[in-house]
């Protein structure tokens, strides 16, 4: 290690910045990602440790300079966190709202209604589960949406004596399509949407059609792959009677809360859609929605606030500080320049490179660090004259769908497969998942590349606000 550092110290500056801090900070960032990917430490702890190491190194190497109004430390920590505080605001607001909506039984109620509408028909049930997964993740984000749908699948398939595996995998894979439906459908999506200043309504033009098409494609693949397991068994009348015995009202503990939640959720979504016209950011709307939920839910605020995913908030803060330090060292600008050079300055080729890179990497690494690292690179590319809109949308789509290729590529797969094994003793190995998940990822990747190419070629990407 020492010879490398000595060698680096002797290297000429890159674009006016010394190489040694780039290498050290780049190593800290890579080490943080490796620790997160292999789960050697809890991801929040890994990010916080990475942040401490990055800030220490950045200050030692003088990456951040003292300014008349800001000390180097202010710039290394407070400015970076302040810059990304919008994401934390959205996370807080949506976490509170989603927790209270979950407790109201609103989504559980809708899920049971939908299942009853299928009368236990396996094809209808499979389709309903895929559609409900996309719908629930759209409004509840990926983890709560997946948890509700996997729970439902486990209970329904047991009652109907069906193999739960195809249904659970449908939830795991379709959830990633749901995460790119709207600005606030997934943590990764809202992080990219905030960073790229993408308008809520523009998601319906670019990302929602892709979400629906990719979910449809996944559904067809799963249907074909598990055609034997999805074949109907038993009598249709018996299945219909069993499904009819569900009573959705048994899920509603507080009808007032149930209706209030529906209103607040609808109001928040309308607020998201109108945010641009109201000249506020999404985090303000999310904050208002969360506060309204706290005010009108009748749930003790302390209890609801405790449910905010503080672990993700800490993870973000740590990650932002690590990436902010690396960015200041100039390493990410250098990477951006190299990518543009590799694409010979062609915006569409650059976009394709980014798409392939993110699709491949998201399968093995949590998509949040991947997206968080790409954000400053895209910003740098933009400052070097690259059109930014195609790159932001590329990140939104590929970071969410890339996770379908492996059982550890997305939180929905991790949750769904763990639940399947724990509740029903059915293990889906890497081999089996790679066959179906890999097939779906290959087809979805082809579709995504074609989709992005058409959008870029025809200039369909909406201009950012």
């Amino acid at each position, binding site marked *: 290690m020492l010879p490398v550092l000595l060698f680096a110290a002797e290297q000429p500056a890159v674009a006016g910045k010394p190489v040694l801090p780039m290498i050290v900070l780049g190593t800290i960032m890579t080490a943080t990602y490796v620790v997160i990917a292999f789960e050697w430490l809890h991801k929040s702890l890994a990010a916080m440790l990475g942040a401490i190491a990055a800030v220490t190194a950045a200050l030692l190497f003088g990456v951040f300079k003292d300014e008349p109004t800001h000390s180097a430390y202010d710039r290394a920590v407070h400015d970076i966190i302040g810059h990304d505080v919008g994401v934390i605001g959205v996370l807080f607001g949506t976490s509170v709202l989603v927790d209270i909506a979950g407790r109201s039984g609103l989504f559980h109620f809708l899920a049971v209604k939908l299942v009853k509408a299928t009368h236990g028909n396996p094809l209808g049930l499979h389709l309903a589960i895929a559609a409900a997964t996309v719908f629930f993740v759209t409004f509840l984000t990926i983890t709560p949406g997946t948890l*509700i749908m996997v729970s*439902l699948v486990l209970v329904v398939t047991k009652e109907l004596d069906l193999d739960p595996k195809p249904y659970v995998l449908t939830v795991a894979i379709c959830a990633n399509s749901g995460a790119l439906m709207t600005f606030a459908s997934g943590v990764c999506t809202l992080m990219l949407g905030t960073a790229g200043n993408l308008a809520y309504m523009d998601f319906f033009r670019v990302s929602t059609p892709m979400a629906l098409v990719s979910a449809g494609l996944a559904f067809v693949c799963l249907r074909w792959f598990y055609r034997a397991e999805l074949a109907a068994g038993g009598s249709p009348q018996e299945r219909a009677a069993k499904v009819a015995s569900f*009573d959705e009202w048994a899920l509603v503990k507080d009808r007032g809360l149930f209706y209030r939640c529906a209103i607040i959720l609808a109001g928040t979504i309308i607020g998201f859609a109108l945010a641009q016209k109201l000249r506020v950011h999404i985090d303000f709307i999310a904050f208002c929605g969360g506060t309204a939920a706290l005010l009108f839910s009748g749930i003790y605020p302390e209890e609801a606030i405790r449910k905010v995913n503080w672990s993700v908030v800490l993870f973000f803060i740590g990650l932002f500080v690590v990436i902010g330090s690396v960015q200041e060292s100039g390493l990410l600008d250098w990477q951006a320049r190299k990518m543009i050079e590799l694409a010979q300055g062609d915006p569409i080729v650059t976009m394709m490179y980014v798409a392939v890179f993110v699709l491949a990497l998201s399968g093995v690494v949590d998509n949040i660090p991947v997206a968080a690292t790409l954000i400053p690179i895209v910003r740098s590319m933009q400052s070097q004259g690259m059109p930014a809109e195609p790159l932001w949308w590329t990140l939104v789509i590929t970071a969410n769908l890339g996770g379908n290729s492996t059982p550890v590529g997305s939180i929905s797969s*991790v949750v769904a497969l763990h*639940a399947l094994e724990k509740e029903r003793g059915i293990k889906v190995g890497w081999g089996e998942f790679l066959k179906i998940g890999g097939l779906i990822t290959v087809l979805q990747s082809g579709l995504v590349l074609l989709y992005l190419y058409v959008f870029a070629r025809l200039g369909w990407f909406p201009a950012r606000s």
Partner: protein
Amino acid sequence: MEFEEADRMAEDVAMFRAALHARPTALVDPSCKAVLVALDGSNQDTTAQTYAAALAGRFGARVHEHRGATTAAEILQAAVEHQVGLIAVPVPFGRDISELRDESLGFVVDMLLQEAHCPVLCVREPVEAVEVDAALADLVVAATHEDQYAVRALSWACRLTARGGRLTLLAVADRDALEEVRLLVAETISSEALAPAALDRAMAQQFGGLIAALQRRGEADGFALRVEFRVGRVAETVLTEANPRRRLIVTGAPREHQALAHHHAVDLVLGARGAVLVV
């Protein structure tokens, strides 16, 4: 999977199982042609009269006032004579509440709770008429199991709750009873099975059918319904919820004084600041 997610999933699975196994439960439609209010000359008389008039109004029933009774037998005889569907009495009977407070119900009320053929409304602290109206718009029903007594208590509560009012079902897993069971079969029940979250899930399944029936009734009759699962001592838990605003408590109990549910009802009446309807 992280612990919190595993816990949330167990909760979701329990909710769906509750929906699946919800036994169809039918609420009864209680009838009451007359209400008997027994007065003892104490400072609770006016409140007992106001309650009796308000409850009679819910059923379109007559109110009979009975003064000067000194025994439960006299009150019960008057109830039979007038064919009443509900008896309202100040508790303790024959003395001001400040004299006995929460030490004893007095012999008359003890006997009424064991012998009455109809529900008994036990009136505690004297309140203004407006507070009686408020109590009838915000009822608390205490139940430990989904049994015939819980169904009867809830049926009465639904009938009494004012349109636009609120009914709270407090389903309490009795800590004392659980402790006895745990001591009895300690080796076969894990402590996790008796953890509050696990008990919540068990109660969600047990009360599923009743909750569904209540929500439908609430939707039709225009009152709000909230269900809460608690673990604790029954009377203590319910009184903590009801006493600050002197809410009307409704509970179902067998007449046999040895029954645990009967003891819970007596404890509720002893500790209540508002009125308690023992069905």
